[in-house]
């Protein structure tokens, strides 16, 4: 039984978590939808290459697209049925990518699960993680196997159970309901990474999870203060180990690899149950949803079907968000599909979200004080408005921003600081610097 207190980082802020809407609702298996559209770009890296053609029959768990490169991931079919088309469709963030559209015949016919593993060495576990198409399920979607093969010497594995985004409870429910399975997954990850030190960071608003994981002797539970953005990789590493990840460096440079609890669960399923990654738990919440739920959904499920399954939207719904309200993009329509990284779908009413426009900056400095990276958001905003992106980088430090949105959350003038930051980053990237 090992519990340690997390180290406090400067900055960050307390955000009402609004998790009570779904925290006590057990994970429910959503019936498989009539049609799925599975994205070929569900992860960071090269898009996957389809290995099926329109008209082919596929089964549940069949490989439909292979990894497009070293940094890539396999994609498996989440339903059985006929491939209707391979075409471009919109992603929740407004960009477009290729989707494999499959018509579900509802047979749920599974022909070929992954082969039984002969031995469980570090190498074979890594291979299995790669084969099963597992990516970081916290949101970024970086291929898990690549992260587990760092070039630098790494001595600890940190499991991210912070879930600092308001509303989301999918990781919480998973930790509560599948504690043993996640623990097995964590130990498999540790084995693949060849490390002995394993931490799991859990925010204090989930005391039952902290207690549940403290039963295991081989992992250290880090009791984290409830503070946004606790789940940021850099800040989680600091809270758990006291190590700082250098600017522009990777977590592995600080000797740590971070994986999400949902990823650990996917690893358990892939290794122990020979099941590739084609479904995940997500939170459907917000006051605009009639019956908020934690759902186990198949990859590529249309969001409007999820909304219908949860009783539909209230008439005064104002905003649809893919993911959490701090970093998730708003969506113009619900004609979109879940991916391996969709952790939430929020439909909010106008009283939940802020819709007042920006007012002039009064230079109060709350953004700078709250910035977990200790940057100068007001200067980034100021220079971005003036189209001087070089200065936004020089004085504001925009290149080191982690896009957490804490600055804009605390801003009394309600300025669109994140928008300025994104614009600056884009312009700086275009400028070749």
């Amino acid at each position, binding site marked *: 039984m090992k519990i340690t207190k997390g180290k406090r980082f400067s900055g960050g802020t307390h955000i009402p978590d609004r998790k009570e809407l779904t925290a006590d609702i057990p994970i429910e298996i959503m019936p498989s939808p009539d049609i799925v559209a599975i994205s070929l770009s569900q992860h960071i890296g090269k898009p996957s290459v389809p290995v099926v053609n329109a008209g082919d029959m596929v089964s549940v768990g069949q490989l439909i697209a292979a990894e497009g490169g070293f940094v890539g991931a396999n994609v498996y079919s989440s339903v059985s049925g006929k491939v209707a088309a391979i075409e471009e469709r919109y992603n929740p963030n407004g960009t477009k990518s290729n989707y494999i559209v499959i018509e579900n015949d509802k047979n749920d016919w599974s022909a070929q699960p992954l082969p039984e593993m002969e031995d469980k060495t570090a190498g074979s576990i890594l291979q299995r993680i790669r084969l099963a198409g597992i990516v970081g399920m916290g949101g970024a979607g970086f291929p898990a196997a690549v992260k587990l093969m760092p070039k630098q010497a790494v001595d600890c594995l940190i499991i991210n159970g912070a879930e600092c985004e308001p509303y989301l409870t999918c990781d919480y429910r998973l930790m509560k309901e599948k504690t043993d399975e996640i623990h097995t997954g964590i130990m498999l990850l540790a084995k693949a990474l060849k490390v002995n030190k394993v931490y799991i960071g859990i925010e204090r608003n989930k005391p039952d999870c902290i207690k549940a994981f403290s039963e295991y002797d081989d992992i250290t539970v880090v009791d984290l203060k409830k503070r946004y953005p606790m789940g940021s990789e850099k800040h989680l590493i600091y809270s758990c180990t006291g190590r700082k990840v250098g600017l522009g460096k990777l977590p592995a440079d600080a000797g740590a690899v971070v994986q999400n609890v949902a990823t650990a669960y996917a690893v358990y399923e892939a290794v122990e149950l020979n099941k590739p990654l084609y479904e995940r738990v997500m939170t459907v919440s917000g006051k605009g949803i009639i019956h908020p739920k934690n759902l186990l959904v198949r990859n590529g499920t249309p969001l409007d079907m999820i909304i219908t399954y949860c009783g539909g939207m209230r008439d005064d719904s104002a905003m649809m968000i893919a993911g959490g309200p701090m970093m998730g993009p708003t*969506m113009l329509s619900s004609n979109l599909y879940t991916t391996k990284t969709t952790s939430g779908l929020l439909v909010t009413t106008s009283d939940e979200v802020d819709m007042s426009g920006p007012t002039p900056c009064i*230079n109060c400095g709350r*953004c700078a*004080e709250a910035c977990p990276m200790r940057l100068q958001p007001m200067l980034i905003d100021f220079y971005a408005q003036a189209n001087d992106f070089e200065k936004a980088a020089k*004085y504001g430090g925009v290149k080191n921003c982690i896009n957490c*949105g804490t600055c804009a959350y605390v801003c009394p003038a309600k300025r669109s600081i994140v928008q300025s930051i994104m614009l600056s980053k884009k312009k700086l990237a275009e400028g070749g610097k």
Partner: protein
Amino acid sequence: MQKIIVSDTPHVRSKLTTKRIMLDVIIAIVPALVAGIVFFGGRAAFNVAIAVVSCCLTEWIWLLIKKVPVKDIFKKFDFTSIVTGLLLALSLPPLDYKYFYIPLLSGIFAVGVVKMLFGGTGKNVVNPAVTGRVFAFISFLGAMTSGWIQPAFGSISGEVVTGATVLTDMLAGVRPTLSNLDLFLGTGVTGCIGETSKVAILIGYIYLVVRRVIKWQWPVIVVGVTGLVGVLLNGCDFTLFLPYILSGGLIYGAVFMATDYVTSPANNLARYIYYVLMGVIIALLRKGTGIETVSFAILLMNLIVPLLSLHVRPRPFGSVPFGVLVKEKFAKLGKKGGKAE
């Protein structure tokens, strides 16, 4: 279903608004305002009313001339002009009714020239209230320095201020006759409307700190540094410390004027440097001129804020530790030296 809204992240925001902050500042000023009116009567109330009305009207008329729709003017009104008007009036002496044009013109100057001309809320380079006061002081020197009247309550120690104010006496080398308690309560103290009763300002200060509008360190640094440097400049007599900080407009300026967001650096590191320098300048100017100089010192310091904000910044999370950086520099220097030999 109503319109679906698409916006940038984050979609949840804190409840705090600029308007709420300004309302908190107004609430914090109320004790000093009440004390001023109790001590100096109708004259004080009259001055405050004129200044506040003048400030607000200036803003509205300016916006009308700029053809901003009337609906928007009231929707966007963020109370900053009320704050400016209050702070300005409280930093003026309890002027006679015949000098009604002084708060009026300073209000117009403060909001019209200092704030609106530079682009409105958040864009002004110097503090409008302080500049308004300095404007009044320079333009109407006679009226501004002849208007001292005795407050409604005499001093507890039974003494009477002989010179213009306690501070001018003290800077001229005369030991203050009033007790520190008198200076603290404002009984028997001549001075500007809002600055006499330190206890009223202190209540406002506590309110601002509790509401997290300001950090408790900010005014403390200004007052502390001014007091220390002042004592050192005046023969290291530490019994002068309390009278030195309790007299004049120092505490008033430190709590309400120096803490203004727009005209002070936004990051805390730069802010602390700003306040230390401000304290030093106040004490030096007091010594050099023999009069109260808090407003001039704040004005001077306002001008270097952009420089401080840009060049004094905390190092980002995960930067190479400062110690290591210095060591590396030295290691490099050592190598270079080695080559030269």
